[in-house]
């Protein structure tokens, strides 16, 4: 047995800070099947950059697996995954020159839909593009993912009262933008 092998096999005792994964490979695959597409939609619609969304999606899952996951409840695990993705988006926006929603190719927000739906989506995309990044996240989590104020607070790390206020203001602004563009 090589020294490296010995270290790897002794890992749980040698490095207790490494959490043992709550999911095995099969459980993770099932969780991935259920959560990947909504997570992709969230990252894509909030970042406006398909390549970035793909990178962040991979990173979110790798970090999800590397951390101590919430006890087997699927809903909690999914919320935790969105929390990781939210932090990754925030880290991206903190760096200079984050891309805007305006750059998003049309095919990414109107694939396989009717002309009416496409018009509504373009209207939403334009309005979202003018919102602040954090407001985009909160709006998406509330309206596309149907998360409660409390759940959004858990995902974003904000206080529930702040989420309520931010969402109220963002909705007001969104309404103005959407009605102005009709």
């Amino acid at each position, binding site marked *: 047995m090589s020294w*490296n092998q010995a*270290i*790897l096999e002794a*890992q749980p005792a*040698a*490095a207790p*800070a*490494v959490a043992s*994964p709550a999911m095995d*490979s099969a459980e*993770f*695959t099932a969780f*991935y*099947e259920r959560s*990947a*597409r*909504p997570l*992709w*939609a969230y990252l*894509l*619609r909030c970042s406006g950059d*398909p390549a970035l969304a*793909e990178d962040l*999606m*991979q990173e979110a*899952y*790798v970090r*999800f*697996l*590397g951390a101590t996951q919430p006890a087997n409840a699927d809903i909690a695990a999914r919320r935790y995954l969105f929390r990781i993705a939210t932090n990754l988006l925030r880290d991206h926006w903190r760096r200079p020159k984050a891309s805007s929603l305006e750059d998003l190719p049309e*095919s*990414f*927000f*109107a*694939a*396989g*839909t009717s002309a009416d*739906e496409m018009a*509504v*989506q373009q*209207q*939403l*995309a334009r309005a979202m593009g003018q919102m602040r990044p954090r407001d985009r996240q909160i*709006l*998406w989590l509330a*309206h*596309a*993912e*149907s998360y409660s104020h409390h759940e959004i607070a858990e995902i974003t790390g904000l206080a529930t009262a702040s989420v309520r206020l931010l969402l109220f203001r963002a*909705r007001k602004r*969104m*309404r103005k933008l*959407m*009605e102005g563009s009709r």
Partner: protein
Amino acid sequence: MKTCPQKTEVEQAVRSGQWPLGCAAELREHVASCEQCAHEARLLSAFATTRESAMRTAPAQSAGLLWWRAQLRRRHEAMERLERPGLAIPTATIAASTILLIAVLATAWKRIDWSRLIAACAPAGWNVWMVTAVAALLCGFALVAAIVGLPDKRG
């Protein structure tokens, strides 16, 4: 503005996918006449269709590959932790050696017979205070010389 009592019903209809054709005709009539509910239905429908179409463009990633990448990263991080010397060990070592050094010096200091040492080494007629003053002067001079003579590392 007061919240319309039927807003929740409209929200539920859109979220469950029943809006507009799958829900009661009364609700559709209400939405047609209520500005607040009409906006709510429009907003939620826009998010729902945007989500649906975005989900259809999701890239094909392998869950198995992500699983192994996560395993590799965990192992790599565990290795790094083992290779990086912890801060606790050097701190404890330095503290123990310092205490030991002070103890040894204190014991040695007590054992020295200072008056005999001065009588043997210093010129006749010198007392402890004169020797101390000269020693302090010499130390000060050595310190100044060391500082002035230090090579300039900035260059």
